[in-house]
């Protein structure tokens, strides 16, 4: 903070705050100038509505905290002026600047601190969204600390090596470095406790699902190699039930992953640290009425969408044919690049979107096409139209196609528990470790990323297996793109067994996950 004073009338104070574009933060200089003249209060530097409205909040907050609001011509500049300033978190810095320009806050130490917080009319500092990315920005820019709302201190303490100074009222800001120094740094000694390695128990478990062994096996393969999966079957066979249990067999989030997931949630103000950081993988099930903007993220000022909220977890599209075609097509780029780029006239923003796509669908509009026990009464054209809703290029990115048949009556009535999620998870983690080791020199870690050159490098086939694959392709009428995917899936199957080479059994199993090809499309 710098205070210049010309004869005690014109004063300038500069404080630092932060603005977010996507998940990237920018340092914003809040310059406050008090001038003689007709009383006015202007904010310049591309403020949006919430920032402009902060005038009224700041005015009331200062008055109601027992300080004089200066009867001066007040000009606030938010620099750099070319970045759009969004959100109410500039309140505290603006109020602080006004107090500093009047020499109520006098010290230079504030220069090393980032100030964020929303004010209420009585001067209380309210919590704001996006604290995690802001504190990370402060750390990156070598700030000494961050002054932030009391309610956000836990979230902020996830970032190590930076002072966290929580304030709950505007007068706290004055006392931090004011005449009676009362600086209190939030000691995040327990922040490591927030990162827990233990997997929290899920309320659901794979053992609750009767039968459907084939489906469970396919899901295990999908998770082990991070393959995308589509389940096709008549209504009521447990497709949704299966999908909901997928996170239970995924490995818990690593420390860095927890931070990454929380960072996205932080922008939307959804971080809940009551029970420590989230170790469970995100599982998102958007309704099929979802719009393009809420799926991939968007808005005039882009915010993350469902696919970013599913980052490091599962995006489950139930009844995928019911989704708008446009929405589904938008998934293609993020599935490929593991991130989504949102362009608006004023800015381009990247959000991470590394998720497993799990889809489910009925085989036809009535749902019973191919069911041995109930007759389908759809016309061929109806079935064709229904299936054409999922485009080839999207299906191209789904490695496993799985048919989930209706259960046998005997299996249904029998009380027999399936395998527990815990045991499946052990196998999945083992298979993923093999992959991580194998791809340690590559820029990917999963079998699902294998393509082109790498596919041949890591999925070498024995001569006999090549013949087997050729025969399968010919007789089942599989496409060229199916070939790649069979290899990828076969690679994962052999990893699950801990085998170095792909064997004929693995290949044969992989081939059968393509058997819907042609039938479904």
């Amino acid at each position, binding site marked *: 903070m710098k205070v210049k004073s010309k004869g005690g009338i014109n004063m300038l104070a500069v404080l630092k705050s932060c603005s977010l574009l996507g998940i990237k933060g920018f340092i914003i200089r809040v310059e406050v100038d008090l001038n003689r003249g*007709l*009383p006015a209060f202007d904010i310049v530097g591309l403020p949006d509505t919430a920032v402009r409205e902060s005038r009224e909040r700041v005015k009331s907050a200062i008055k109601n905290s027992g300080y004089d609001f200066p009867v001066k011509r007040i000009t606030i500049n938010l620099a750099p002026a070319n970045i759009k300033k969004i959100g109410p978190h500039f309140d505290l810095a603006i109020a602080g600047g006004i107090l500093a320009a009047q020499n109520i806050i006098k010290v230079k130490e504030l220069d090393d601190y980032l100030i964020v917080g929303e004010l209420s009319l009585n001067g209380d500092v309210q919590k704001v969204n996006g604290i995690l990315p802001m504190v990370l920005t402060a750390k990156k820019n070598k700030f000494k600390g961050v002054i932030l709302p009391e309610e956000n201190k836990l979230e902020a303490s996830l970032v190590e090596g930076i002072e966290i100074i929580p304030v709950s009222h505007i007068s706290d800001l004055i006392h931090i470095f004011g005449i009676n120094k009362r600086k209190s740094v939030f000691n995040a000694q327990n922040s490591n406790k927030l990162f827990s390695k233990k997997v929290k128990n899920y309320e659901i478990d794979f053992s609750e699902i009767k039968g459907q062994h084939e489906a469970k096996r396919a899901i295990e393969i999908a998770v082990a190699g991070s393959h995308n999966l589509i389940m096709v079957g008549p209504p009521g066979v447990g497709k949704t039930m299966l999908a909901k249990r997928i996170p239970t067999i995924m490995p818990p989030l690593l420390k860095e992953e927890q931070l990454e997931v929380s960072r996205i949630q932080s922008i939307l103000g959804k971080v809940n640290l009551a029970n420590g950081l989230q170790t469970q993988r995100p599982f998102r099930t958007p309704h099929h009425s979802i719009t393009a903007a809420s799926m991939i993220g968007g808005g005039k000022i882009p915010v993350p969408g469902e696919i970013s909220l599913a980052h490091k977890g599962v995006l489950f599209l139930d009844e995928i044919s019911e989704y708008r075609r446009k929405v589904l097509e938008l998934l293609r780029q993020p599935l490929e690049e593991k991130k989504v780029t949102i362009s608006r006239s004023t800015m381009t923003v990247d959000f991470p979107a590394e998720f497993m796509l799990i889809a489910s669908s009925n085989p036809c509009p009535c749902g019973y096409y191919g069911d041995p026990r109930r007759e389908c009464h759809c016309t061929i054209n109806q079935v064709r139209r229904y299936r054409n809703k999922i485009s080839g290029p999207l299906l191209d990115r789904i490695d496993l196609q799985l048919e989930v048949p209706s259960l046998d009556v005997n299996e249904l009535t029998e009380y027999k528990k399936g395998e527990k999620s815990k045991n499946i998870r052990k196998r999945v983690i083992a298979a993923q470790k093999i992959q991580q080791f194998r791809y340690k020199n590559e820029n990917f870690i999963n079998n699902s990323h294998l393509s082109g050159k790498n596919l041949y490098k890591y999925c070498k086939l024995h001569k006999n297996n090549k013949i087997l694959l050729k025969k399968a392709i010919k007789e089942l009428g599989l496409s060229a793109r199916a070939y790649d995917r069979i290899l990828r899936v076969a690679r994962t199957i052999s990893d699950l067994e801990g085998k170095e080479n792909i064997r004929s059994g693995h290949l044969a199993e992989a081939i059968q996950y393509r058997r819907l090809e042609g039938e479904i499309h």
Partner: protein
Amino acid sequence: MFKMKFKNKREIGRWGEIKAKKFLEEKGYKIISENFRVKQGEIDLIVTKKKNLVFVEVKTRKTEFFGPPQAAVNFKKQKKIKTIAKIFLMRNRYNNYIKRFDVISIIYGNDKVSIEHFKNTF
């Protein structure tokens, strides 16, 4: 100083305008017009100094309890003064003058009078 006693608000304003007039004359301004009144309203003082033509709005208040006097010269009032200034310029020749709008705020509470002059305000 004496204790101010006014019968009504118009008297307060009138008193303030006389104060402002004296204040400006002391500073070397020449009074051109007092209470220049047209259909749209009036301008309290129109004065000149060198090649400056200044339209002055005088605001008088007893206390700052409801804000300082100058805060009462809001956008609506400013617009009004500008309109009247245009009419004044149509009727009088001040082509070579630099035009300016000033506000003089007078507070007379607590047995003392304080006058503030804000130049080139709007």
